[in-house]
């Protein structure tokens, strides 16, 4: 099968390659670009571990062919830290609030939460839970993930983070 030339911007850098049409975006990112942050979890479009930000949308990269992402602007967890190397508010929130245990879902959670906060700067707890409903975590029970996102929202809005009473 003839290969196709693709070019896309990934974490601010241009990536060009020849791909088979059947190459999934997640395989392209992990195997050809060595970006192993996006994870392969369920492979059936449920778990969200492979989530990347693509043209301003959260996308499950296991359910898109690399050829379909030709020309796209993509951000993965590897491109999330601030330009000076310090952690993005979301990464800091996940660390401070213990938003991860095994860490497998975390890259997908953070890239999804990034887009959620772009669209809604001060989401309620319910909006956060609805907004990350496409990302599964088998460790935390989500409590601390929600807190981590609230922490990040507060930090990005320049207001002190107040943990809700339990």
């Amino acid at each position, binding site marked *: 099968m003839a290969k196709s030339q693709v070019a896309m911007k990934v974490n601010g850098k241009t990536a060009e390659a020849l791909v088979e*049409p*059947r190459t999934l975006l997640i395989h392209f990112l992990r195997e050809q670009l060595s970006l192993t942050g996006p994870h392969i979890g369920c*492979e059936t*479009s*449920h778990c969200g571990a492979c989530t990347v930000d693509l043209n301003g949308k*959260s996308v*499950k990269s296991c*359910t898109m062919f690399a050829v*379909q992402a030709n020309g796209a602007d993509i951000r993965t967890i590897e491109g999330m830290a601030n330009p000076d190397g310090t952690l993005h508010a979301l990464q800091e929130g996940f660390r401070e609030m213990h938003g991860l245990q095994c860490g497998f879902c975390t890259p997908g959670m953070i890239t999804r939460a990034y887009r959620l906060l772009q669209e809604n700067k001060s989401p309620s707890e319910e909006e956060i839970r*609805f907004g990350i409903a496409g990302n599964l975590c088998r460790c935390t029970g989500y409590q601390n993930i929600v807190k981590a996102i609230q922490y990040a929202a507060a930090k990005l809005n320049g207001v002190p983070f107040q943990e809700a009473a339990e």
Partner: protein
Amino acid sequence: MIPGAFEYHRPSSVREAVGLLAKLGDDGRAIAGGHSLIPMMKLRLATPAHLVDLGGIADLKGIRADGNDIVVGAMTTQYELIGSDLLGSKIPILRETSLQVADPQVRYVGTLGGNVANGDPGNDMPAVMICLGATYQVMGKGGERRVAAREFYQGAYFTALEAGDVLTAVRIPVPPAGHGYAYEKLKRKIGDYATAAAAVVLTMSGGKVASCSIGLTNVAETPLWAEEAAKILTGSSLDAATVKRAVAAAEAITAPASDARGPGAYRTKMAGVMLTRALARAKSKARG
């Protein structure tokens, strides 16, 4: 999981896509958002030799008013449906339904056209389109034709689409101002297909039902239009006894499979419960 090999085509016009699909015949398959097709390809339940990606066709995008109809391009995503102020004010059941489709990531990519054209009885939009009396615009070898949603579905994954056809747009008549509506969906978890779901659009006048339409999701091989149930309700005040009779009439036309979502008899009863809830909520939203 890696799909079988295929050749990729990305036409830039509907005419080009129809020409390609007509030429490729059974070897070709159109791909819209791909969130039904790509998982099937990964499982090798679908192994098309050629994929015709509709994603590069600008004409298939957009939401516009046309007289008393709203026309939604087939490649409009669920996310775009949710964000449309025009639909939000004129046909709000669509936003309510879209928000119950799959999960956020899938809604960014999944399209209305794919949802209605695939013929999957688990998809939510077909029953809503049947409820609303929508029409599908289809382009094929012989030019454009229109097919009523109520006549489109023939069996699970069997529709009025023929080889080489592309569903280009969904044309929806705007329900009267002040109508009540609801889409009630029972699912085991976010992202799941319905165990059973019911769509209701109704108008009230002087406390009585002036018009009513009901669609049911995933309780038969096709989405269902519960015409008899709607007839029973018309003219009533939605009193408990009449609702009970209408729900029985709706349950009578279901024939759900027994599967992981429950035995068929349970799913039939859940269709009745969803309809009862949808009627109550639609009534509370209706004016008149």
